[in-house]
Structure formats: C-alpha cells, structure tokens
C-alpha cells in the first residue's frame, strides 16, 4: 500500500496536534518541531513528484471505500507540483517567523501546521465535498494566522476576510448541493463523467452550479470584483504570514484549473469550457486594475499585495485561453509568482524593521543601515515580479504571450499584459527609488538586521534565478502537466477504473 500520498496531510496534522498538546513547551522546542515537520514536506513532495513525473496517477482510497463512494486522494503532476511549491514557500516563511514573529500566543506553530494541512489537502483531494472541508481548514487556519499578533488593522482586515470567505463557503455548499442533487455524486472523476453525458434538460442547473463554484474559487483567487479584501488583509498580516499567503490565491487558481479542466473541461458536452467566457474579461480587468492599484499603493506591502492581484490576472487569463501551451505557461508562472511574492513580503518585513517609525511607507526616510544588501535583493525581486528579463517572470510571460495565435484574443492579451508590465515597472521603480535612494540623513546605528531573516528572504528571491536557469526542463514538465489536464480521461480511468461505474447499482456489494 502506498501511503506516501496522504503524508502531506497527516504529517502537518499530527505535528500541529503535538504542538497543541505540548502547549507549555519552550518556544525553542516548538520551533524545532515545526521546522522539522515543515522541512520533511520538502523531500516528501519531491518523492511524490518523482512518482507521478511520468504522467501516471496515484489514487488513495480513504477507508478503503472504492470511488466514487468513498473519498479519494489523487496525485497527478499538478497536485505534486502544488505540494512541492507549498513546501518550498512554507519553509523559508516559517524560518523567518521563528526569528520573533511566532510569539504572542504560543500557538502560532500549531496553526501554521494546520494551514499546511489544509493547503496540501486541497491539492490532493479528488472529492468535491472534501475540497470544501479543506477549504474550511485553510480558511480558519489562515484567519487565525492573519490575526496573530493582534492590533486594530489586523482585526478589521481579518473580519472582512473571514466574513467574505464564510459567505463563500455557503455558496460552495449550495453549488455542491445542486451538483449532488442532479448527479448524485461528489467524486470529481465521477462528476466529470456525468457532465459529459448531462441531458440538455439538466444543463441549466448544472451550469448555474458550475458558475457558482467558479465564484467561490474566484473569491479565493482574488479575481475582480472579489479582490478588494486582499490588499488590506495581506498588508496587515505579519511578514511570514503574508509570505505564506502568497499561495492562498493560488489555491483558488488551482481549484479553477482542476475543476474546469476535469469536470467542466473540453469533454463536458453541453457544459464544455463554460468558465472561459467569464474568466477571460475578468482576468484581464483584474490585471489592469491590479496594476493601477500597484501604482497607487502607499506602502511596500500594499504594493506587493497588488502585484499578487496582477499575477492572478495573468494566471487566470492564461487559464481562460484553454490551450495546452497557455496552461503550460500558467503553471510555470504560478510557482514563480508565488515564490517571488513570498520573498518580497519577507523583504518588506525586514525593510519595515530597518525604517523604524516610517515602516514601509513609500516616502523618504532615514537611510537603512543595510541599504545596499536590501537594495540588491529588492532589485532582483522587482525585476522578477515585473516580468523583466532575464528572470523567470519574463520567461513565463514570453511563453504565455507566444501561446496565443494572432487575432483579437492575442491583441487583448498582449496589450493588457505588456501594458500591465509597464505600469508595474513604473510603480516598482518609484518604490525602489524612494526606499533606497531618496533618503534623509544617515543610517541609524541602533537598528540591527537579523541575518537569518535576510537569508530566508534571499532563499525565496533566488527562486527566479533557478526557475529561469532550469526553464527548459521546468517548462517541459508544466507543458506535460497541461497536456495531462487537458486529457482528463486518464484521471477518470485512474480513479474509477477503465470502465468506470457509470450506472449506480444500489445493491452492488463491494468486496472488502
């Protein structure tokens, strides 16, 4: 029995529970346990990636109940990629947090582990209702992390965050309810099969449910008009939490990719590709408005939050194109933007610490003692996140731009993506020149710099260098992933068997 698949869920769960049971442990012991548990996810994710790198699937039937009756975890290239990305982002973020941001209540590490459990579970599950459960886990954990450390701004932003997302959860339930009411199943592979054969008389209800699901995922992904909560929430969070949150919007993107290639993809009959007509204009508008938001941002953290929104626009615009080439580009761009944004959030935390009362406001302040080092890191991060050569952001955009054939779609995508890049470039050059050049007076001698925090941020900001250096194998992998996603029959066969129990036989006895 191959139990590896469930470990990314069970390991953080058990570590989180252990951390709760050891509530009075010394902070150093909690840190060690939390770091070890998070570090273990990294080789685990690599091992899982290697298992399915050849395009195969691993299916894990919980409780040994066969699909579609029980819950299954499904590991494919996309899930493995997301697991690895989560581990890569989480470890430096956690490392940074152990340098002082994890105090206050004593439960930071437990919640952090639960957050990882929720993320990994969402990427692995092959069951729509189980996806809901993991959305709840990561929502409630992220709410606790967001509030961690207290303060008025966090409470206000947190309230908006949690209320909107709870409303989203209700909508999720309604959508799942309708889907279950019509198809009688929750298993995503089974749902996919049923969509392909949906009768026209049922198309309307299914269509409505599918769009409602899209809305829920779009709220998670922060798509127009549902992203307005994000900038203040992410600006209010502590640096390591904001860094980890860089993947939260990607959960929404992941869910959209998964559900709208598998269940409502090209083979969904009357419901085929129904998300595109909404995603396409909204993603482009998100990109543009995000760019304007970046230009308007008054703090560095606010600026980075808007850069995240821009990236969501780029990713979902690529998803809406519905081609293998575009999806491959999106899946390459996704880790890039996640890791860079995370690194920038950590860097913003350090910069904030260096500027005293001026925090990360984009106005002139006393020079930072570690100006040059931080400046180099910011420069690298800015080039990467703006999508300028030679870093991975450029390669991702290049591949995405060349994935559309000439025509109106190309004209739209190119003008919006390139125009957005220009606005981003202006916003970042202004921010950089204010933070690092427009200084008043000398550096304060009392401010210190935590080298480990700097190292954690550097690790994440090195990602674009590696991503562009190894762009060829990575793109080959994401391209293969996109192909796998666009051929959902493999997924369905892996979960349900080659035939698939199309007809529900109520009396069927399953040998156990």
């Amino acid at each position: 029995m191959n139990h590896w698949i469930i470990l990314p869920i069970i390991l953080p769960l058990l570590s989180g529970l252990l951390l709760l049971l050891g509530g009075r442990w010394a902070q150093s012991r909690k840190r060690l346990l939390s770091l070890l548990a998070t570090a273990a996810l990294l080789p685990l994710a690599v091992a899982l990636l290697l298992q399915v790198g050849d395009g195969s699937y691993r299916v894990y039937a919980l409780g040994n109940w066969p699909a579609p009756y029980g819950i299954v975890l499904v590991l494919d290239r996309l899930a493995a990629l997301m697991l690895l990305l989560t581990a890569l982002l989480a470890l430096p973020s956690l490392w940074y947090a152990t340098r002082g941001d994890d105090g206050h209540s004593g439960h930071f590490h437990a919640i952090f582990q639960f957050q990882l459990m929720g993320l990994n579970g969402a990427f692995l599950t092959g069951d729509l209702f189980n996806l809901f459960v993991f959305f709840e886990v990561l929502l409630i954990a992220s709410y606790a992390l967001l509030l961690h450390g207290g303060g008025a701004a966090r409470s206000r932003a947190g309230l908006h965050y949690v209320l909107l997302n709870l409303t989203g959860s209700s909508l999720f339930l309604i959508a799942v309810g309708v889907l279950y009411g019509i198809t009688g199943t929750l298993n995503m592979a089974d749902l996919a099969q049923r969509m392909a054969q949906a009768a026209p008389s049922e198309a309307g209800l299914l269509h409505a449910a599918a769009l409602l699901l899209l809305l829920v995922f779009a709220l998670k992904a922060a798509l127009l008009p549902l992203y307005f909560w994000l900038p203040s929430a992410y600006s209010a969070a502590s640096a390591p939490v904001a860094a980890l949150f860089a993947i939260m919007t990607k959960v929404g993107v992941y869910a959209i990719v998964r559900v709208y290639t598998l269940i409502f993809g090209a083979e969904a009959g009357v419901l085929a590709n129904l998300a595109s007509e909404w995603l396409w204009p909204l993603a482009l508008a998100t990109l543009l408005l995000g760019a304007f938001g970046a230009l308007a941002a008054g703090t560095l953290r606010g600026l980075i939050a808007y850069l995240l929104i821009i990236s969501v626009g780029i990713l979902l615009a690529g998803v809406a194109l519905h081609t293998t080439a575009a999806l491959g580009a999106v899946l390459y761009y996704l880790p890039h933007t996640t890791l860079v944004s995370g690194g920038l959030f950590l860097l913003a935390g350090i910069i904030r610490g260096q500027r005293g009362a001026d925090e990360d406001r984009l106005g002139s302040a006393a020079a930072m003692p570690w100006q040059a080092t931080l400046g180099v890191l910011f420069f690298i991060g800015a080039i990467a996140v703006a999508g300028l050569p030679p870093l991975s952001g450029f390669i991702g955009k290049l591949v995405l731009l060349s994935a559309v054939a000439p025509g109106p779609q190309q004209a739209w995508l190119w003008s919006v993506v390139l125009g957005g890049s220009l606005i981003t470039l202006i916003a970042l050059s202004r921010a950089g020149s204010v933070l690092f050049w427009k200084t008043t007076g000398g550096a304060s001698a009392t401010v210190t710099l935590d080298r480990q925090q700097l190292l954690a941020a550097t690790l994440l900001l090195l990602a674009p260098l590696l991503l562009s250096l190894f762009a060829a194998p990575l793109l080959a992998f994401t391209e293969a992933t996109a192909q796998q996603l666009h051929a959902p029959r493999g997924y369905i066969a892996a979960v349900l068997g080659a035939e698939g129990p199309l007809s529900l036989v109520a009396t069927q006895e399953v040998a156990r």
Partner: protein
Amino acid sequence: MNAALLPIIILLPLLGALLPVLAIRLGRTASAWSAAALSGIALGLLLTLVPQVFAGETLLYRLDWLPAYGLNLALRLDGLGVLFALLILGIGLLVILYARYYLSEHDPMGRFYGFLLLFMAAMLGVVLSENLLLMLIFWELTSLSSFLLIGYWKHRADARQGARLALTITGGGGLALLAGILLLGHISGSYELSVVLASTETIQAHPLYPATLVLILLGAFTKSAQFPFHFWLPHAMAAPTPVSAYLHSATMVKAGVFLLARLFPALAGSELWFYLVAGTGMVTLLLGAYHALFKHDLKGLLAYSTISHLGLITLLFGLGTPLGAVAGVFHIINHAIFKASLFMAAGIIDHESGTRDMRKLNGLWRYMPHTATLAMVAAASMAGVPLFNGFLSKEMFFAETLHHSWLGAWHWLLPVGATLAGVFAVAYSIRFIHDVFFNGDPIDLPRTPHEPPRYMKVPVEILVALCLLVGIFPAWTVAPLLASAAASTVNGTVGGALPHYSLAVWHGFNLPLLMSVIAIAGGALIYVLRHQLFALHARLFRPFDAKALFERQLEQIIGYARRLTALLENGSLQRYLMLLVASAVVLVASGLWGSPLSGPLPAGEVDAVTLAGALALALSAITTTLWHRRRLVALIQLSVVGLVVSIAFVRFAAPDLALTQLSVEMVTIILLMLVLYFLPQQSPAESSPLRIGRDLLLAVAAGGSVALLAWGVLTRPYQTIGDYFMANSLSGGGGSNVVNVILVDFRGFDTLGEVTVLGIAAIGIVMMLSGLQLKMPTADAAGRPWARERYPMILAVISRPLLPLALVVAIYLMLRGHNMPGGGFIAGLVTAIALILQYVASGIAWTQQRMHLDYIKLTAAGVLLAALTGLGSWAFGYPYLTSSFGHFTLPLLGEFELATAMLFDLGVFLAVIGSTLLVLANLGKLSVLKHTLKEER
C-alpha cells in the same frame, strides 16, 4: 572553436561586475584596474576574431536554453557586431580610465564600475545576439543597468527622476519590441537572425508586417531618443559625465539604431518603412539640431546634438537604400568617436571650473589650452568640417538625400532639411567652442579652472587622434571595418557585394559639397546673430521642461489610480458582500437562463404542519433581519430559525441531524449571548433608505435564486451514491445508522477535517482573545445596572444533579450511535451543554475550580485520537481510516459490537467538548477577570 569566445566576451564583464565592488577595498585604483582589465581582456579576445570576420565569415555560437520556445543562447559575430563590440569595449576602456579621475572621493567607485560593467555586458549581449529573444533580454538589461547608472548620484532628485524617466521610456519601448519580435518570429518561423534576415519577402508581404514594424520601431525609437520619445535623453544628463560619455556616444542610444541596422535587410525597403523611419529621423534631426543651439548647459547642448545625430542616422537607414545604410553605419562610427570625446571634454571643463553654464564659461583658452585644442578638433568633426571624420559621413548623408526615389514632387524636402540641420550643427559647434574658450572672460566661476590630471586627458587625446586619422586617411584606417560592417548590415546573412562608395575626402565640386559650404557659412552666420536668435527663441518657445511635464502627467495618472483604487477598495464590508452576492445572483441567473427549470417530478402535496413550519421559518428569518439592530431580539429570532430547521429534520426523518442541529443551536446561542454582553445592545442605523432598498432587492434575488435551484433539484429524479451507503452501511461499516457510518467511516476523512476546523476555530478564538481589553458594561442602555445576583440559586441547584444525568445520556448516545441516532458529535454537544449549564448556573470560577481540564489539550487529544485511529489500519495494510469491526460476547452483557469507528467517534466526542468549552471559558474569562478585580476592590 573560435565562436566559443563569444559568450566569454559577454560573461567577462557580466560576472566580473562584482570584481570592482570587491576590489575597492584595495583602493580606487585597484577597482578601476579590475574593471579595465576585464574589458581589456574582452577586447583582446574580440580582436583575435576580427580577421575572420573581415574575411567575410560570420561566427555563430549556440547553446540551447529553451529551444521549444525559440529562446536560445545563440550568439553571432559579423561585421556589424564587430563594429559595435569594438566601440563598446574600446570606448568603455577609455571611460573607465576617465572615470577614475572624474569621480570624487565621496562617490562609491566600486559600485560605479560594477554598474558600468553590467551595462557593458548588456550592450555586448545586444550586439552579439543571434537569437532575437536573447537580444531582447539584453536590451531590457541595458535599460535596467542604465537606470542604476543614471541614478548613480542617488541623493539628487534630478538623477532619480531622470533615471526613472529613462527606464520608463526605454523599458516600455522594450515591451513593445518584445511584442514586435514575437510577431516577427511568428511570421518568419524563427527567432534566429539567420532565418529572419533571409525571409525578407515573407515578412514584408505578411498582413502583420505593419504591426510588426511599428512595434519594433517603438523599441528602436524609444532607445535612440527619436521624436517624440527624445525627451528622456537630456534628463539622463543628471548622470556623472563618464556615464553620459558612454551611454550617449557609443552605447545605450546606439542600441536603437543598431536595431535598425540589424533588421535592415528584413524590414527595410517598404514605403511604410521609409515614411516611418525617414520621417521620424528627419523630424528628430531638425528638432535636436535646433534645440542644441539654445541650450546654455554644456551637456544639454551635447544631449540635443546627440538626439540630432541619432535622427540623422535614423534618416539614413530610413531611406532604405544600400548606400544610405553604408552612410548610416559610417556615421555611427564617427559620431561615437567625436561625441565621446566631446562629453569627456565637457566633463573636464565642469570638473575643473565647477559649472557647465556657457553664460558663465568664457575665455577658458587661457586656463586650459590643451583641453581646448582637443575640444576644437572634436567639435569641428561634429560640425562636419573637411579633414575631420564627421565631414565624410555627413557628405555621404547629403549625397544620399539627393538620390532617393520617394516623395515624388516633394523630393527636395530632404536635402533642404538636411542642409538646414547642417547649418544648426555648425552653429552649435561654433558656440560650444567660441562661448567656452573665447568670448571674453569667465564670470563667477566656482573654481579657478586649470588643466586636468594628465590621465584624464589621455582618453580624449586618443579619440581626437582617431577623428583626425579617420578624417584624413579614411582608406587606411576605417575602410575595412566599415566595409565589413556595412556588408553585414546591407546583405544580412546572404553574402553579397556592396554598392560602390568612395571614402575619398575630395569628390570634386558637386551638390553635397555645396550643401556643406552652405551649412558652414550659414552656421557661422547664425552664430553671429545668436543673441537676436536667443531672444526670438525665448519669445517663441516658453521654457518647456519635458521631465516636469512627464512627472506631472505621471502624478496625475497616479492620482487617478489612487482615486480609482480608493473607489473600488473602499474598506466597506457591506460593499464587498454586496458584490459577492450580486455576482452569485448574476452567475446563477446566467446559468439557468434558457434551460427548463422544472424537472419531470410533480410537486408533492403540502400538508398544513409542513406549511406552518415553513412559514414560521421564513417569518423568523425575516424578523431576524428586520430587528437586527436590537441584538438580543434578533438573536432570539435567529434561535427560532434554528429550532424550526431542527424540527424540519425530524419531519423528514433525520433524527441524527435534528439532534445535532438542536445541540449546535444551543451552544451557539449561548456563546453569542456571551459575546453580546460586550456589545452595545443596539447597533446604530447606518444604511440610507436607498441602500436598504438595494439590499432588499439583492436579498430577494439571492433568496429567489437559491429557491429556484432547490426547486430544480427537487423536481428531478434522485439517484445518488447514497443508495450505496444504505446498502453497505451494515455489511461494510458495521453499523445500521447510515448517517453515523457515513460520518465516521464512508466519509470519516471529512469528519476528521471538520473536527480539525472546530479545534482550529477554538484555538483561533483563544489567540484572538489573548491580551484583549474590552470595556465592561455596568448598566444597560436604559441606565439600569446589571443584576447583582449573578448566579440564580434555583438554576444552580437543579444544574448540579443534571450533569451526571447528562453525561450518562451522552455516553449512551455515543455508544449506540453506530446503529441508532446518536454518535460522538451529538454526545459531545450534549456533554458540552451540560457543562455550559454549570458555567452559567454557578459561574466560571466555581466551575473551573472543579474542572481541572486543559481544554486545548482535550481538543488536541480528541483530534489526535481520531487521526491515530485512522493510522491504525496501516498496520494491516489498508489505507488510512479503513475501519474494522467485530461482534463479541461477554457474560452478563451478551453479544455486542466493537468497531474501530467507535474509537474515531470517541475522538470526535472529546474534540467537540474541548473546543466548545475552550471558547466558552475564554469568552467567560473576559468578564471574570474584570468582575474579580471589582470584587477585590
């Protein structure tokens, strides 16, 4: 093998950029030497390759990077590449030497050389790329590294703004260029120059040719400061003069004309090309030449002169003729040489006299005759005086303007414009020399000028010598370089002959010579009349600062962006929720549109009881909303909603759900009442009638949408995996209560997740409440104080015996849960309610004294038990959470069943108790702390 040197030539300055930064610890000279050594070695390597290229070979180097997307590390060295690489490295070396003496003690020299090498590498990359995408990468790198160089004096606002301006314009142009190159690659099927340059016909016949051309030209024109993008260049003069000498003679701005030359075989020759390129070049040529004359700043004059000369080169390429291209290449060489030396001379004057204002700088001949001589030679070249190199290419330019086939009857426009520009060029050249070195005595100079250090002049001397050598003996000096560069420009990769051109200084009496004579005479005349012209210029043109305009426009755009963002992200939760709900309504409506709503099933009979229940439900939901501002009343209404839902579950034969719902209702209502204690009893009216109307509409639409969905689902036949659960519950899960078996077995993983959520929520609340300071109300809104007897006697007396009873019920519920209504979740809630009752009846302090439970640990232990139960199945080779059950017989008790699922259920039981009480105790603590404090007083 030789081609393998190409990447090394680029990598030397690229990777070596760190060297001067490190070497500065050994001193400024060491830093300069390290930079010079790197460029020197690169130059040496390049020179070893030159003979091959002059022999007509094109060296290609290729390393795969992203072959699938056409992006490769493909490099190319041909005549054009050699010319530019020589200029970049040669002038770069001179600039390094010059800067060693130019930069002051306060300037961080290591950083300067680091940036300079970075820029040098980027420029080399641009001119040596075979792959167009690779070239674009280096292209943007030149924008980025020039940003750092221009902003080098970061304490100066004009440097920062100039740097951002340059980056915005050239970086933005780069993005357009990216689009253009992508189109070009799409049309010709490859991004390799060898292929692109050989597909001229395909490219120019393609319907996308105009778009491609415009996008590529946007890149070239922004970089080369062509009208209307020229305005960034003068402001880049805020950089240290060595940077200006480098960027604006041989490198940065030449990248644009390099691109024109590089793609000349592929793109040039069409009518569109002529009008766009030649037209832009002409306007820029005239505009630059005119404005150069009226600049009082020495570097400003040179900046506009640079713009003008770039326009000249652009115009030459725009003609689209081979001879025009030859002249263009030739002028690139000459301009680089004389302009670099002029910038350096201007830098020396600035450095030694403290100002660059020509109204103050006069009569410097007496103080620095050596520098003055050098500057005069270079300026004569810039003016196009015979025997200096600038004359040769300018003469070719004049000749070319006469021999073009476009414009028809308006063909005379070009030569007239060219001559006019020549007139101004002569005038500003004279001004540069006469104003500075003669023209009376200096006025208020900050320093007494003198000759610069010996080695600061060496670079200028070398360049000036080149001006003369090329100007007098062109055939023996520049001829092979020009021939090779021009051949590769005109012919691309297909080897071919060049049209005949002559490098002779004397061509006899002809029209071009006449134009030169007119230019020189006219220029001199204009210089004589300059004071009148200055006055006229001042009257005609109000002082116009493009940077200020740009900054103002940018500020305006940012202002718009701020307003737009504030409008969208207004911080109102009501707005965000409205958008969410409205989006849901729109999406559901668009999904349902046009499809039949009702299914084949007829609507069932409605009996009076059900109808009454439904009405009660609807009514209480409406009253909750209506009275939401009176919080306690709303809460009571809300509890009615919950109760009716519980009854509905009973009505539809779901006793488990009813029990669960009932207990959940009780717990939440109690917790909410605790919270209400800290809040004002009334919430203020905040919504305008209009907003209330909007929200009402939205609520009706949202409720209606859900009703429609429910109707649609309920009128359709119902066949689900539920049937399988029914069939397999007892045989596979060991329980006859299907709901419970679903919870702990079929979908136990969901339950595990939800129990975890419950635990996280409880701990989250603890985290939120820790350290929270709340104002305690001592009286209600009407001013009545809270009752003194907080723990009613009767309740306390009754509650105590209730606890053991409730616990027995809970255990009973849990044990029988697998087969009959009950289970760990309900049992946990029942226990929790009994415990809550103790808290309510006897107070937190009393209860805590008797309950030595750490609720956090209880919660964690419960979840852990559930999680570990699942883990147990691994030992038997089954997946996580596989259950097992068996029937056992014990004396007295008879036969009974044990299932691992019960262990799981026990975990759920504990977790539910733990998390519920955790929340309660922590909310209660908030008030206890204050109360005990008060009592102590």
